[in-house]
């Protein structure tokens, strides 16, 4: 019982850790690009959001898994 709760928490936390670091690096790169070339800032923003969405998939999958674990408590 207790292990399931710990597992649900860990799944969410670790996934959030990884996705947070990844999105930080991505935003860093996008900001650098925008400051170097402000003319194409709009295009960079669109692509940045798309890439962030693809990264977020991992987080959302682990969120679904955490809910499945939670329902077993």
């Amino acid at each position, binding site marked *: 019982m207790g292990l399931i709760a710990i597992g649900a928490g860990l799944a969410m936390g670790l996934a959030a850790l990884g996705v947070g670091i990844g999105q930080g690096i991505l935003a860093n790169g996008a900001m650098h690009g925008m400051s170097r070339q402000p003319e194409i800032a709009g295009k960079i923003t*669109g692509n940045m*959001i*798309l890439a962030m*969405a693809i990264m*977020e*998939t991992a*987080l*959302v*999958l682990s*969120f*679904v898994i955490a*809910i499945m674990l*939670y*329902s077993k408590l």
Partner: protein
Amino acid sequence: MIQFSELGPRIILYFGSGGKVFLTESTCFEIILAVILAVVGIWLGSGLEKVPRGKQIVAEVLVGWVYNFAQQNLGKIRGEKFAPYLGSLIVWLVFANSLGLIGLRPITADLNVTAALAVMSFVLIQGFAIKELGVRGRIDELGDPYYAILPMNVISELILPVTLALRLFGNIFGGMVVVDLWMHLMEFLSYKFCAVPILRCITVIPLNLFFDMFEPVIQAYIFTILTAVNLEEGMSGMREDTAEKRRLKREKKKQKLIKEA
């Protein structure tokens, strides 16, 4: 409190006996929302004039944005062809995601709805890719640049609807759970000193702004743009240098056969 043991929405209508045929909350809201959007769309598009004014300006901005968006992602001719589908998808998704604003359960916080939408996108992508390239061309495209990579590409094509459905569902459902938890905390706190759950009314507005206004727009945009990007990728065929390489190889084989004969 939301029941986590079942992720689906409430069932509100039963047909017949035994309870096997039923209608859920999200199905009803879906149909109502679609009817409202269709009526508003027909009203916006009626009585067009040469010089736009009033409601026509709104309609023109919306339609112009959608066509621009489709043509940026799909190219000029294909963009015009697919703009109506992408436009109705994004408009419906924005409103379906932000239904929490009026206190209802968002339609897309239901795995059945998002899975149906994802299957729709998947069928559209595969259908038009095969219609455009033929079965042989589609296999060639999936085996680009080497045929050894074909199974991996097939798996990544099959996984697309799963991730599309789960991303939309997870984001909207997570937002709904956070808002619900906050409401219950505020109710608990306000019962400490008052008989009316007074704290619930104002404190939830920042959460609503994020989870019911900002997030729905972003998620609808992401769903639509992923559909558009994958559609473009599926319909574009194999790369030019790969096609050239394969043509040369085939010619070499042909000449070898001629020499041997």
